[in-house]
């Protein structure tokens, strides 16, 4: 037999190694779970790293209150299936307590407010490590970020003061109040993630597959019509067969017109696409050239 690993196996082995390092070296890790495909992959990798034992950390969702209902339903079911503890940190609560201020207008989004809720929850639970599902291929600022990404006690990322990462030797040392964001699938691409989902036969929220939905067009993208968005003049709701390529808030996640209703057909479409995931579906990154970099510096995922 050949002693070669496929790239998916090599990426999986690296991610498992990273998760175990964090569990061993940090005191209070947490796994950030959005209900999207990347965090579903993270959850599977955590099972691979720690089964037959339980995870040595809880799972946390930062709930904006504007999530797709299908995703929330899926989240609860999946976390129960794997038998782990779920913490829900609520953006609505942050707003009610006056920690965050709701944006207004037709383009209002709670995307940015999530940072406040996330940092508050990290402080409240004294987490010193938070796993995230970000990938380097998603965005240019991410390509420069370490797998163990150090955050000061304001949750800030300083791209110029990153710890060098040599071999497989990660340095996760933090002082009280500081934490590390850890990205076990840093080196994965969107296609790797889909192939892994297919290989592992992972279940996904239904919105990833073609379905009929009332939508409206804005800035060349299709958005779900919902109580959370105000239509502007000239915008009209119509029904379209769509699927989602990423999962975020209903207010800022664009849908893709598609009839791919199975995992196989979705993977084939992704493999053949000529537009990036963020370019096709995320309004939040279109605002300025450095939108992601700015949000990351403030403590965003």
């Amino acid at each position, binding site marked *: 037999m050949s002693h070669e690993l496929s790239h998916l196996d090599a990426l999986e082995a690296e991610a498992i190694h990273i998760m175990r390092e964090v569990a061993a070296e940090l005191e209070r890790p947490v796994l950030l779970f959005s209900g999207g495909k990347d965090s579903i992959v993270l959850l599977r990798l955590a099972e691979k790293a*720690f089964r037959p034992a339980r995870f040595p950390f809880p799972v946390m969702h930062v709930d904006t209150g504007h999530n797709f209902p299908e995703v929330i339903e899926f989240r609860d079911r999946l976390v129960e299936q794997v038998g782990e503890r779920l913490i829900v940190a609520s953006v609505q609560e942050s707003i009610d307590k006056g920690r965050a201020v709701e944006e207004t207008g037709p383009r209002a989004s709670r995307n940015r407010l999530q940072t406040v809720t996330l940092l508050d929850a990290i402080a409240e639970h004294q987490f010193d490590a938070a796993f995230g599902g970000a990938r*380097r291929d998603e965005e240019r600022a991410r390509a420069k970020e370490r797998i163990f990404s150090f955050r000061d006690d304001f949750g800030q990322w300083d791209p110029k003061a990153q710890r*060098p990462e040599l071999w497989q030797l990660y340095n996760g040392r933090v002082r009280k109040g500081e934490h590390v964001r850890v990205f076990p699938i840093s080196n994965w691409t969107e296609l790797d993630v889909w192939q892994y989902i297919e290989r592992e036969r992972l279940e996904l929220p239904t919105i990833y597959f073609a379905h009929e939905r009332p939508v409206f067009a804005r800035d060349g993208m299709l958005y779900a019509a919902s109580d959370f968005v105000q239509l502007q003049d000239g915008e009209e709701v119509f029904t379209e067969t769509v699927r989602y390529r990423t999962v975020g808030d209903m207010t800022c996640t664009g849908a893709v017109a598609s009839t791919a209703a199975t995992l196989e057909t979705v993977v084939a479409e992704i493999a*053949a696409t*000529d537009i990036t995931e963020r370019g096709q579906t995320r309004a939040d990154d279109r605002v300025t050239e450095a939108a992601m970099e700015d949000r990351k510096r403030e403590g965003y995922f």
Partner: protein
Amino acid sequence: MTAIASTNGHPAVDLSTTELLRFATAGSVDDGKSTLIGRLLHDAKSILADQLAHVKETSERRGDGELNLALLTDGLRAEREQGITIDVAYRSFQTDKRRFIIADCPGHEQYTRNMVTGASTADLALVLVDARNGLVRQSRRHAAISALLRTPHLVVAINKMDLVDYDQSVYDAIVEDFRSWSVGLEFAEATFIPISALKGDNVVERSERMPWYSGPPLLDHLETVEIAGDRNLEDWRFPVQWVVRPQNDDAHHDYRGYAGQIAAGLLRAGEEVVVLPSGRTTKLAGIDTMDGPLEEAFPPQSVTLLLEDDLDISRGDLIARAGEANPPTVARELEAVVCWMADAPLKAGGRYALKHTTRSVRAIVEAVDWHLDVETLARIDNEDGLALNEIGHVKLRLSGPLAFDTYARNRETGSFILIDEATNDTVGAGLIATPEG
């Protein structure tokens, strides 16, 4: 189960079983590194339409011409503003033959630190040379660091051939210069390729303007260079990372597994193993994963080992095969070549935390003996300590025993990092050497 997919215009192939190759690039500023990476990504069709549109738009706005491929690798705002690269960036692309991860190491600021970082995980180093300038300090430095870090493969890409009329004699002279300079450096293999990153010659497509060159274009070489043989399957090295004990579960009440990533060896159940540093022996009873037991396992797989006897084993222990011809050394002192990455120098008497595989100890610097001229790898006597970006030889005394190999024997069990316990920064990268006495 496999995914049959057509990626971005590539023919339909099974992409779920391709191999992963990691390579590190470096070159002096303006040698064309960004252009080359942009060209590779672009010609391998890994740049999608919206990214391309963004680069076109920026190129035109800046007056760079139609399409400045170098912009594809622009990362942070400060970099765009200053037109420089600050930090190592990691980028992925895929062809129908292989999946690639590029560690893109900037060549000017913090050069040694960045190159060492990029080289530490690379299967291959890609050194870029400007055909007009020949080998310069930076290209020699990158090749030397790659040799020191034992990156198994080296490619010297001689770029901007279009500016020297695709002249074979220019290429030959640089190859000759490199060969005579590198006598004594240990490379597994060096390959020379004349290219033009800007025009695309010999990057993805074979160049018709250099019929005198009979080798493959760069991408072909990256797709086919043999890497599976680079792993050490002979020694067994398994640093215990995490002990799996599902206590509150009846079905697994007696389960006790040792989880970790295999650093070396073709592990098979039934063989006698030794646990270091204690030296106790037992048998490997099984290799477990969530997907079921494995007959055999090899690097870099992450698995869980089951042992026959209930020994007292914890994180930081090293499991090796009993009675090996090249057993790990167990000692409380070691000699190493260290690349120093902090502003405050490394000096005799300094104390640091040392992380080796999954074990951390404290280390005191007993002596600094020499440092390297990073361009020639010549040793220069030095007892004053190592400054930022210097690479030198040190003797360390440790607070507890470590089980290690020389770096030459095993990259994983022969390397360590030093951490400043006051700042928690990673300040040094160490390669364990054979004692000089």
